[in-house]
């Protein structure tokens, strides 16, 4: 049980202290952690689980060296039901191969103090020294509420410090306090509160403590109520929600495009420069086509990822994200998921990697896993270049009705196909494989608050780093391996032939070509020849690599990427036979809509689910579905004479 009183000057341990920061979601924990560490934190993972781990060093200006702060996941209680809570408890009890922390700062939102104190009682019951950081004091006063930290300290017996993280008030005191956790002691009352076995006991204890403190509860947050009346209005609220989704797509596709084009142009230009200036050897070509273009394939996504997370983190911090989940929850409920899954799926339209990273806010492990398994169906931006190439080449641009053309409708159809596949598979998984009791649905709607730009910047930076590390290394590695597969074995250049012709001959004899031929029986029912299969192999690095690879395979004199579509569909002037029938092209489009062709997504699924089981499953079921649908498309399209 709890250590009650420690006599003051027993020789305090003078080793580096580790202090855990514990608090409910939205309690102001992150702002506080950032203020104490000076916005320098190491983000990572706890081994074997998927919960974010953030650690940082206490800033030296608080007068202590070597105090490490651990930002625990936001939890309502220490009852280990969700993954977040399990991690919090394991860290506090000394798990993950590390000793238990030397003290715990419990962050309590002063405006909802009644809800925060039970967590303090639970933390005390673990027997660690605790202290309280009372946040949102300014908001409490603005809403005519009152609590005296001194009185609360007297009642609880542990240090209580009122802080306003936004303005740095109280941070110095808190910083000094966390350097000496061995001085914190709990009063008998607090220890008894921690002994309460049921939530009721702990809430009743919190009520008694607050009763002894002459505390004035705050008035309802007027601004939040007013904004909610508007933003959650049956009609206006739905319109706002749709506008939010439109804004989201606008941001990740339209606004990110110039930066993405610039970066890909920059990397291509660099690769071309290298090819032009250095002697033409295998090493040069590996550097240019394998490494530089490989790096390019990664960083081209960076503007989108940064923009995506800026929007997400901003809306999350200001309080709208929870409202969006609240509005859409019913729709998600039809397929067995919940509102929070929507945000992750929405992000996946940019790229499944950040989408899967965003599932961490989903408390129910089953819902979370389901979302991870279906997120790769969302039409990510890497599919677009392939869609655009094939649609331009095979679908007529004739108008259908008003402003709609066959091309536009096909693209829209492919988006619906991806979305439909995601929702339907979610429904199937939740009814079958992942059926079972889940946590009850609850969602806290925090008050609207103006976010701190530095908190958002830090969050975006953390995630961008994570993306580069996880996806970047994989894409680069696959890109280099592919270069070898496409260029080996070596073959002496024939001086009689042009460079492009020589290149094509190397490719035709390459290991990748052998793989393509090996795959021929698999894709023969759709009439894909070995060249398309090589493209499918190459697109395992990232889907858009398909376009460049096909361009390389079909490279002939005077043919560049623009000519590729003409070549594929045989629509050129020379009356050349098409290399792909329209039925096969439609099948290929459908294949791309469903297939799991992205190594980085698989790697992220492995990281997030802690093993190869689920990525293997995802690979199998998505590609199975893709093959079947492509074959059906081919059969149907052939039947109607497409």
């Amino acid at each position, binding site marked *: 049980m709890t250590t009650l009183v420690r006599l003051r000057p027993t020789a305090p341990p003078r080793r580096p202290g580790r202090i855990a920061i514990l608090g409910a979601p939205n309690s102001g924990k992150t702002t506080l952690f950032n203020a104490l560490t000076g916005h320098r934190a190491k983000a990572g993972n706890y081994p074997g689980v998927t919960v974010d781990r953030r650690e940082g060093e206490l800033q030296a200006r608080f007068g202590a060296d070597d105090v490490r702060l651990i930002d625990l996941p936001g939890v309502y209680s220490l009852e280990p039901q969700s993954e977040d809570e399990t991690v919090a408890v394991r860290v506090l009890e000394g798990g993950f191969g590390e000793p238990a922390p030397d003290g715990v700062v419990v962050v309590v939102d002063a405006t909802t103090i009644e809800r925060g104190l039970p967590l303090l009682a639970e933390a005390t019951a673990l027997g660690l020294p605790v202290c309280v950081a009372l946040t949102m004091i300014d908001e409490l006063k603005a809403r005519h509420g009152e609590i005296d930290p001194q009185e609360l300290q007297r009642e609880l017996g542990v240090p209580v410090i009122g802080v306003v993280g936004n303005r740095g008030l109280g941070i110095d005191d808190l910083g000094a306090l966390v350097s000496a956790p061995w001085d914190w002691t709990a009063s008998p009352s607090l220890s008894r509160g921690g002994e309460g076995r049921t939530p009721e006991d702990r*809430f009743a204890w919190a009520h008694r403590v607050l009763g002894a403190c002459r505390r004035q509860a705050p008035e309802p947050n007027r601004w939040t109520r007013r904004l909610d009346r508007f933003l959650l209005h049956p009609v206006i*609220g739905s319109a706002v929600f749709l506008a939010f989704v439109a804004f989201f797509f606008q941001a990740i596709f339209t606004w990110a495009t110039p930066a993405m084009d610039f970066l890909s142009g920059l990397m291509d230009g660099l690769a071309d420069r290298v090819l032009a200036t250095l002697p033409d050897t295998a090493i040069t070509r590996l550097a240019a086509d394998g490494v530089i273009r490989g790096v390019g394939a990664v960083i081209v996504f960076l503007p989108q990822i940064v923009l995506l997370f800026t929007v997400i983190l901003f809306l999350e911090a200001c309080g709208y994200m929870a409202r969006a989940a609240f*509005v859409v*929850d*019913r729709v998600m409920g039809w397929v067995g998921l919940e509102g929070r899954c929507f945000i992750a799926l929405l992000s996946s339209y940019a790229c499944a990697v950040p989408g899967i990273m965003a599932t961490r806010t989903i408390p129910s492990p089953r819902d979370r896993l389901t979302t991870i398994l279906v997120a790769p169906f969302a039409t990510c931006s890497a599919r677009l270049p392939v869609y655009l190439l094939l649609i331009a080449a095979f679908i007529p641009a004739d108008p259908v009705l008003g402003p709609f053309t066959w091309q536009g409708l096909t693209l829209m159809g492919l988006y619906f196909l991806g979305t439909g596949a995601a929702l339907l598979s979610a429904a199937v998984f939740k009814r079958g494989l992942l059926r079972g009791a889940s946590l009850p649905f*609850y969602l*806290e709607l*925090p008050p609207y608050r103006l976010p701190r730009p530095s908190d958002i910047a830090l969050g975006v930076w953390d995630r961008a780093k994570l993306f580069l590390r996880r996806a970047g290394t994989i894409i680069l590695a696959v890109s280099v391996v592919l270069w070898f597969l496409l260029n080996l074995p070596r073959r002496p250049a024939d001086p009689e032939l042009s460079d492009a012709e020589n290149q094509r001959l190397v490719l035709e004899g390459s290991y990748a070509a052998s793989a393509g031929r090996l795959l021929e029986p698999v894709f023969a029912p759709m009439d894909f020849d070995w060249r398309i299969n090589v493209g499918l192999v190459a697109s395992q690095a990232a889907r858009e690599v398909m376009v460049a690879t096909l361009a390389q395979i079909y490279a002939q004199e005077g043919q560049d990427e623009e000519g590729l579509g003409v070549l594929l569909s045989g629509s050129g002037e020379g009356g050349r036979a098409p290399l792909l029938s329209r039925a096969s092209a439609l099948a290929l489009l459908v294949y791309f809509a469903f297939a799991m062709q992205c190594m980085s997504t698989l790697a992220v699924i492995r990281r997030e689910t802690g093993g190869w089981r689920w990525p293997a499953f995802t690979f199998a079921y998505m590609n199975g579905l893709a093959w079947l649908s492509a074959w059906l498309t081919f059969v149907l399209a052939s039947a109607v004479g497409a």
Partner: protein
Amino acid sequence: MDRTLADVADASDGRLLEIAEVTGTGADSRRLREIGFCTGAPVRFIRRAPLGDPAMYELRGALMSLRRSEARRIRVHRRAGA
């Protein structure tokens, strides 16, 4: 005091209610109680989502939303004087 018991899912105005009991067993009911929906706690219906479900409640100074299926488990009565 109004003795009629109902569940919080039926609440449709902003009157202050008091939680009489949280039905159901095991982890589910425990989770609801841990986030603050426990016997004796005052709770107030605020609004429904635009599509009718879930609904938002004021609970111990915070806004919490529950689906109808969860709200059915929370039996309430009207608070004396409210």
